[in-house]
């Protein structure tokens, strides 16, 4: 197992700059997730680590040693792909044993048998060893692909959306197992995904990538509670975070957030948070985008103190709960509601913000400024990382 470092790695394909100065430092035994939209450069990073792509600039280190010029076979990495890439004519056993039988490893059959069975036990597929890939379900194929990676003791596991092809039920189950498995192995793992739930559930740390650049690196909690800009805030969380454009004004030490709903001006007084206020003063934030997660927007179907009136744009179930979208003219608000409400489209609804859970962004640069309870959230995130 190894520590993997990338320093200022650049890679272009023709005129397309796929990676534009990527630096990451993956600790030994860490589960590190690369997360971003399609085309962000996630897979290119993985390929650079594996040696499949050669970066034009920058250094790649395994355990402090520069490996830029080491060919893929000698980097001792194990890759798992989205589309399994199994040998169709070989049984599961032979698929798993293939790498160990290669010229590079030349392991004797007794050891191979032992290792294949150990890996099969771990992946709970001992009963499948005699089957051909064509006789397996997709979930089983993916297990074999992972099992094949497990028989060796690689420097690092590189996984490229291994669960993307599986149906929802299987994906849930495999995600849970994968985390358990990695913890047991104590191996370094770099995992590419565009699914935020996978990123949150699996990653010790997550690197957010967009347009070939690292946008933010941190634990799931850090990124969820303190996203470095609106782009990251919108990536993390389903349904998406609400971004409400408005103004912050101060009068005699008390702060007020005001925003428009269908052209009507609404003001909400902001509970005191000295640090937040200091940050807002420091940044000179007048106009501000407020970010508020859907679970922190409350609703009522009767007029109530502190609620403002708007209309229902849509109401839909997302499984064990539902989302109400309210139309506010220039933007829409998403909020969490229980299933089975009698809600009509375009009916009136009254909405309140739990503003003491909000975060604020600069409306020009879209960069994060500050949020409520930042200090305690930072402390909380630190505690998670240490443990």
């Amino acid at each position, binding site marked *: 197992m190894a520590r993997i470092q990338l320093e200022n790695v650049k890679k272009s394909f023709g005129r397309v700059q796929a990676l534009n100065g990527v630096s990451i430092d993956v600790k030994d035994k860490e589960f590190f997730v690369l997360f971003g939209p399609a085309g962000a450069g996630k897979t290119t990073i993985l390929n650079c680590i594996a040696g499949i792509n050669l970066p034009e600039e920058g250094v790649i280190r395994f355990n402090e040693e520069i490996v830029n010029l080491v060919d893929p076979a000698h980097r001792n990495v194990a890759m798992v792909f989205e589309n399994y890439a199994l040998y169709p004519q070989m049984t599961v056993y032979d698929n798993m044993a293939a790498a160990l039988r290669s010229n590079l490893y030349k392991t004797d059959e007794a050891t191979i048998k032992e290792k294949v069975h150990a890996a099969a036990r771990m992946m709970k597929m001992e009963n499948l060893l005699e089957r051909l890939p064509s006789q397996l379900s997709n979930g089983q194929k993916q297990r074999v692909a992972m099992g094949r990676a497990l028989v060796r003791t690689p420097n690092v596991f590189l996984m490229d959306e291994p669960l993307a092809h599986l149906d929802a039920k299987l994906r*849930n*189950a495999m995600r849970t197992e994968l985390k*358990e498995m990695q913890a047991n192995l104590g191996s370094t793992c770099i995992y590419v995904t565009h699914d935020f739930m996978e990123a*949150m*559930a699996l990653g010790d740390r997550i690197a957010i990538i967009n347009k070939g650049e690292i946008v933010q690196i941190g634990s799931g909690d850090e990124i969820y509670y303190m996203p470095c800009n609106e782009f990251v805030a919108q990536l993390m969380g389903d349904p998406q975070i609400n971004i409400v454009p408005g103004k912050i004004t101060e009068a005699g030490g008390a702060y007020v957030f005001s925003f428009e709903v269908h052209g009507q001006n609404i003001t909400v007084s902001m509970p005191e948070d000295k640090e937040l206020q200091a940050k807002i003063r420091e940044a000179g934030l007048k106009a501000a985008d407020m970010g508020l997660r859907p679970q922190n927007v409350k609703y009522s179907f009767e007029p109530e103190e502190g609620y403002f009136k708007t209309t229902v*744009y849509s109401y*839909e179930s997302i499984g*064990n709960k539902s989302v109400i979208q309210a139309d506010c003219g220039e933007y829409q608000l998403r909020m969490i509601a229980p299933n089975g409400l009698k809600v009509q489209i375009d009916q009136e609804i009254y909405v309140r913000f739990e503003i003491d859970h909000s975060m604020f962004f600069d409306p020009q640069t879209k960069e994060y400024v500050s949020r409520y309870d930042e200090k305690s959230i930072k402390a909380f995130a630190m505690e998670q990382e240490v443990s």
Partner: protein
Amino acid sequence: MAGLTLKNIYKRYENSGKKKKKQQNDYAVKDLNLLCEQGEFIALLGPSGCGKTTTLRMIAGLEDITKGEIFIGERLVNNLHPKDRNIGLAFEDYAMYPPLNVYGNVAFNLRAKGVDKAEIDRRVREIAPLMQIDDILDKMPVKLSGGQKQRVNIARAIIREPELLLMDEPLSHLDGKARQSMRVEIKRLINKIKCTTVYVTHDQLEAMSLADKIAIINFGVLQQFGTPAEVYDDPVNEFVASFIGEPPMNILETTIIREEGTFFFTFADSNLKIAVPSRYYSVVSDGFRCKMGVRPMDVLIGGEGSKGTPEEIATFENLGDERRIGIRVGDMLLMLITEDEKRYRSGDIIKLEVREEKTHLFDIETGNRIREQA
């Protein structure tokens, strides 16, 4: 008034080639009965290969019916040509005419019918804002994003003012975010035009969020037909129970035991013990074997002084909005969801409580719901 009626529909694909001549294929659709009210939104939901698209194609007239009758409104349409059935179609891929701009694509069908120009223009202008394509009317198909193409596709289906709108996985080509917003748009659109709609999907979330009623199909057989709340809260069998809901319902094999007059669910290699709701007492007995189903939302972490069973956490997933915890029960994993902010670690011990009244019983062989006797 009925919008669409399917009566005892069967479909069998005939084998071609001499070899297989004697051997009959199994039915792709078996004895399907559906009644869809005027203006209702029906989803046909099931895994791939279950016969849902075949059913849709029979309604559209693109596929022969082996046995049975289909009525659109009051008309028997079995022998009607697709173009005479007065239906609108929107499929997964867009099949647009590349040399025509968006306006031309939307208007094409009316032009072919010989509707006069002013009327076509009036209808296109009426529908364009509904589908939010008013600002792209003069663009060519190649310039459009997937979401825009699907909007044009649906606009084209509804401009004919069909009696029945048929959609086959219209959102499956779109990425997550576009899919979410299109889902909302489709719902608003149908709400506005009040057209009877049949919608095919394999995504339970789409069916749950869009449909007035869901028909769940497996191996060509209708499993359950009901509102989203009915199929979620009152599934007829294990298949429906595990197909609806994300994460899926926990379904565990159990042996029921009797202790001092109370029945409990017990599980192999586990100390977990859950009381059986008393309404099932007439159908269970000591040593009765079945499967128990409970949704992850109905499994709870007990607080101080809880009487729940102490269990070790096997897996902990922090998903930001919620947290999921897995508990080993024998060789199975019992999942629970919590919005509690507390972070656990695998190995921690929690008191496990189950909302007993929310448990379901399923037959171990057939998977059918075991219900209390009325």
